[in-house]
């Protein structure tokens, strides 16, 4: 019985833990704290944070518990991440949630959603320069797209062993948008620019909203077929939403379905940060490059908005360029916040939604392009 007891004790977490588990558990607790107390993207941070706790309970290998051991429960639900099933389903739900009206009312703002994707490609070059192979560099670059599902989607295709750090980096920075973006936005704009008020967008008819997902889908996917799974589901979800007659499907897509997938994706992405796989110098590099990507993306959006103002009669508030990074609707809210700080009567949220949503389309296209270049 003493043997049994010793054996049992040597299998407990207390015996197996080393400093790395403790670090990761603390990180998990901090992420949960940020999600709950600071309310930075709680729908993502709470599951990811708890997933980190789950993934970093020290367990014996070959016991069928760890997320990387085939046959474990975590491994089964991680399947949807490693086989790129969850990201398109999340996009389906986002499509069924999102109102494209403001974008349809002022399509010129979509250019801001394109501009912010500069962050992706510049970071890609940076990662190459640091010595990452091109497939990994592309996956790191996509963090600059500020879109978790897109980042996971591309990383699974190009550099599956980096899913953990890239996904966590993407989601963390998406959550930290209210921390990262404001200083950059203020640095690059004058007070006068931040005070610009934009006129209300025109009303968009129901028919326009129904036709848009069809036209948008065909156009984008003819140009970048590799974005098909993401954009197909995004526009499909939006058609379900807008066409009214299948409201029950749209409702399920934007509630039960996206919630279930969010839970499973969040907890497994969190659990994939198992200390021995995650705590590497590479991860540090990825987090640094991710922050760089976010900064570049924000700056690109803002600067491009200022450039557009050189040519446009009705000036746009360059702050909304920062919303081009995606991180829907977090970064649009940040724009609203920064704008209101200068002038509490200035409501930029609505205007910021246009670049915000087109940023999602833009980074999905960018992911498609990178994938098609890397996959041979």
């Amino acid at each position, binding site marked *: 019985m003493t043997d049994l007891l010793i054996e049992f004790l040597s299998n407990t977490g207390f015996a197996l833990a080393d400093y790395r588990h403790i670090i990761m558990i603390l990180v998990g607790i901090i992420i949960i704290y940020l999600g709950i107390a600071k309310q930075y993207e709680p729908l993502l941070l709470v599951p990811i944070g708890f997933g980190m706790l789950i993934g970093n309970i020290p367990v014996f290998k070959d016991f069928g518990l760890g997320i990387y051991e085939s046959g474990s429960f975590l491994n089964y639900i991680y399947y949807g991440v490693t086989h790129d099933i969850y990201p398109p389903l999340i996009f389906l739900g986002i499509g069924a949630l999102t109102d494209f009206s403001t*974008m*349809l009312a002022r*399509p*010129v703002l*979509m*250019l801001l*959603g*394109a*501009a912010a*994707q*500069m962050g*992706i*490609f*510049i970071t*890609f*070059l940076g990662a*190459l*320069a*640091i*010595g990452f*192979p*091109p497939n990994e*560099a592309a996956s790191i670059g996509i963090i600059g797209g500020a879109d978790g599902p897109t980042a996971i989607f591309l990383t699974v295709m190009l550099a599956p062993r980096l899913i953990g750090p890239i996904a966590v980096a993407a989601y963390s920075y998406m959550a930290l948008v209210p921390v990262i973006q404001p200083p950059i936005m203020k640095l690059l704009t004058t007070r006068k620019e931040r005070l610009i008020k934009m006129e209300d967008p025109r009303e*968009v*008819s*129901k*028919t*326009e909203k129904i*036709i*848009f997902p069809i*036209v*948008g889908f065909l*156009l*984008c996917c003819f*140009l*970048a077929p590799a974005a098909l799974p993401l954009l197909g589901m995004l526009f499909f979800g939006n058609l379900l939403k807008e066409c*009214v*007659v299948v*409201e*029950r499907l*749209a*409702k399920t897509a*934007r*509630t039960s379905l996206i919630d279930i997938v969010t839970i499973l994706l969040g907890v497994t992405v969190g659990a994939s940060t198992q200390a021995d796989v995650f705590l590497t110098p590479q991860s540090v590099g990825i987090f640094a490059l991710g922050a760089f990507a976010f900064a570049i993306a924000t700056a690109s959006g803002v600067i491009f908005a200022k450039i557009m103002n050189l040519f446009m009669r009705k000036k746009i508030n360059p702050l909304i360029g920062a919303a081009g990074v995606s991180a829907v609707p977090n970064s649009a809210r940040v724009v609203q916040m920064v704008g209101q700080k200068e002038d509490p009567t200035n409501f930029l949220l609505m205007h910021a939604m246009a670049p915000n949503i*087109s940023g999602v*389309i*833009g980074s999905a*296209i*960018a992911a498609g*392009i*990178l994938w098609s*270049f890397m996959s041979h």
Partner: protein
Amino acid sequence: MFGFEAIIAHDGLGISVIGISVVFVSLILLAFAVSQIHKIIALWDKRHRFKKPRQKKDQKAAPVQDPTVPQDIQRASRQFKLLIEWIGEPFPLPKLLYLSEKCGLYRPHSTINELLKCELIIPDGNGYYVWNKEAEEKRSST
């Protein structure tokens, strides 16, 4: 390999330039397409109005498909308004459909669609629907 050398070796610049260009081209095309949609719809609606007189004749000539069509949306809306008051707002669309069928209202699917089109029934942005009192008043005043 590091630095610029690595970028060149992996054709990084080419990929980046083409990449960002395609993103821009896609969104510019999309923006252009979007800006045309409502013009095309407007044109289509005009053509429709233009054709209407002729269509009316056709309709008379064709076998009368629906003899009991309510003469105006006003009439249908009254029935539906009563039903909605009974259900309570906000209501799920399928429930309205289901009950209107049960109550034997005429062609509930298409009537509800009409009501949605002229925005007498509007989504509350939360998956449910409400009766649009403003639109109703506007209608009854015109």
